[in-house]
C-alpha cells in the first residue's frame, strides 16, 4: 500500500468504529501497523501527501474530512503533526471538538520519537531528514517539487545551508538505504543512517480506541 504524493485514499477494511485521518505520506506505515496488530476497529482516510508543501491548506482539508465522517464513527484521531500549520491545525481540532492528533511538530520528529528528536535538535540542525516515504518520493516531492531539476544552481540554492542527510528508516530495506545514500551524494551532503522503526506512531495508534 503506497500512495503517490497527489493521491487520496480511504482504507476501510472492517468499517471500524474509529477513524484515523492521516497524511498520505504515512499510509503505508499506518496500514502495516494495523495489519500487524490486527486493529480491526481502525479505518483510515488519507489526504494527499503533497499538502506538505502547502501546509496552509492542511487545517481546512482535515476539517472537511472530520465533518464528512463525524456521524459514521465513535471517535476520530488525526495522524498529522503540526506540520508547519503554526498551530492552526490544533485550532481547527479544538473548534471541531473531541478530535485529537498525534503530538509533535512533524513526522520526522515522531518517527524518531519526539523526545529523542528534541534532544538531538542542536546536533541535527543542518540535517535534512529522509523517511522511507520521502526516500521513495524524493524525486517527485523535492527534486522536481522544488525545481532542483530546472537549473544547475538550484540544488545549492536550496540545500546550501545543509551538511548531512539523515535517513530515519521505518523498516530495514537495503534498496531504500542505497537510494538514501544516492540522494545524499546527489545533494553533495554527508550521509547518516538511523533506524527508528515506527517511533511514536505505533504507540499513539495503540491508544486510538
Amino acid at each position, binding site marked *: 500500500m503506497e500512495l503517490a504524493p497527489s493521491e487520496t485514499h480511504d482504507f476501510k477494511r472492517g468499517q471500524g468504529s474509529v477513524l484515523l485521518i492521516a497524511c498520505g505520506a504515512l499510509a503505508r506505515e499506518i496500514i502495516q501497523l494495523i495489519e500487524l496488530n490486527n486493529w480491526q476497529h481502525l479505518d483510515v482516510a488519507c489526504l494527499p501527501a503533497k499538502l506538505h508543501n*502547502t501546509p496552509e491548506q492542511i487545517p481546512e482539508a482535515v476539517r472537511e474530512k472530520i465533518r464528512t465522517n463525524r456521524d459514521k464513527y465513535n471517535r476520530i484521531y488525526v495522524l498529522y503533526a503540526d506540520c508547519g500549520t503554526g498551530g492552526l491545525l490544533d485550532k481547527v481540532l479544538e473548534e471541531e471538538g473531541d478530535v485529537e492528533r498525534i503530538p509533535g511538530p512533524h513526522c520526522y520528529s515522531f518517527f524518531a520519537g519526539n523526545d529523542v528528536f528534541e534532544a538531538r535538535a542542536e546536533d541535527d540542525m543542518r540535517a535534512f531528514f529522509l523517511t522511507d516515504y520521502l526516500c521513495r518520493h524524493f524525486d517527485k516531492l523535492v527534486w522536481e517539487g*522544488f525545481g532542483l531539476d530546472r537549473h544547475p544552481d*538550484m540544488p545549492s540554492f*536550496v540545500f546550501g545551508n545543509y551538511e548531512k542527510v539523515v535517513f530515519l528508516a521505518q523498516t530495514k530495506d537495503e534498496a531504500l538505504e542505497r537510494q538514501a545514500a544516492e540522494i545524499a551524494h546527489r545533494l553533495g551532503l554527508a550521509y547518516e543512517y538511523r533506524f527508528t522503526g515506527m517511533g511514536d506512531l505505533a504507540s499513539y495508534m495503540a491508544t486510538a480506541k
Partner: protein
Amino acid sequence: MSDEEDIVLSELADDELVQQMHDDLYDGLKEEIEEGTNILLERGWQPYNILTQALVEGMRIVGEDFRDGILFVPEVLLSANAMKAGMFILRPLLAETGAPTLGTMVIGTVKGDIHDIGKNLVGMMMEGAGFEVFNIGINNPVENFLEAIEQHKPDIIGMSALLTTTMPYMKVVIDTLIEKGMRDDFVVLVGGAPLNEEFGKAIGADSYCRDAAVAVETAKDFMKRKHNQMSASA
C-alpha cells in the same frame, strides 16, 4: 510566459528589455537576468533604477501570483535564485552610487532554523524599496541580533522562522529587548509561512507580514510615522 523564438536582449529598447526581464524573472531564468542587468548598466542606467524597475517590479508580480495561487513554491524558488543573481551584480554598485535610504533594517532567521529563502527575498525587496539591509543569515541566537543592533543601529528588526519549533524563539529576542529597555527603539517585523497575525501579536512584535510586499509597505508606513512623530516633537 517564455516564448520559444530566440530574443536577443541587447537588441531590445530599454522599456522592452525591462519588460522582458520581468518575464525572465517570472520564468526563473538566471542567465538572462544577469545579461539584462549588465546590458542596462552598459547603457548607463543607475543601479538603483535597474533594481527597482527591472528586478523588484518583476519580483512583485511573482509575489502576487504566488499569493494568488497561480505560482507555486518551485517557481518562486527559481525566481528568487534569478533575482539573487541580478542583485549580486548590483549590490556593490548600489553602495558606490548611493541608493536612497529610507531607513535601516537588520534581518535574520532565528536560532535553530536554517530556512532562508523567504527571508533573503524580503531583504532584497527591502533594499529595492530604499532600505539599507543587514542580513545576518540563519540560526541566530539573541546575541547575534544584539550585536547587529549595536553595530548597525537599525530602525527595523526583522525575524524569520519556518519551523513550528523555532517560532517561539522570536519571543525570546523580543523579551530580551524589553529587558534591556530597548524594545521601543525599534520596529519589530516577523514573518515565515507558519506564522500568523495572532502569533505576531502574542509575542509582542509590531507586525506580522505575510509576504515581502506587505513587509515593504509596513516598513514604509512605520518610517513615515516615525518621521511625523519626530517632526511633531521637534
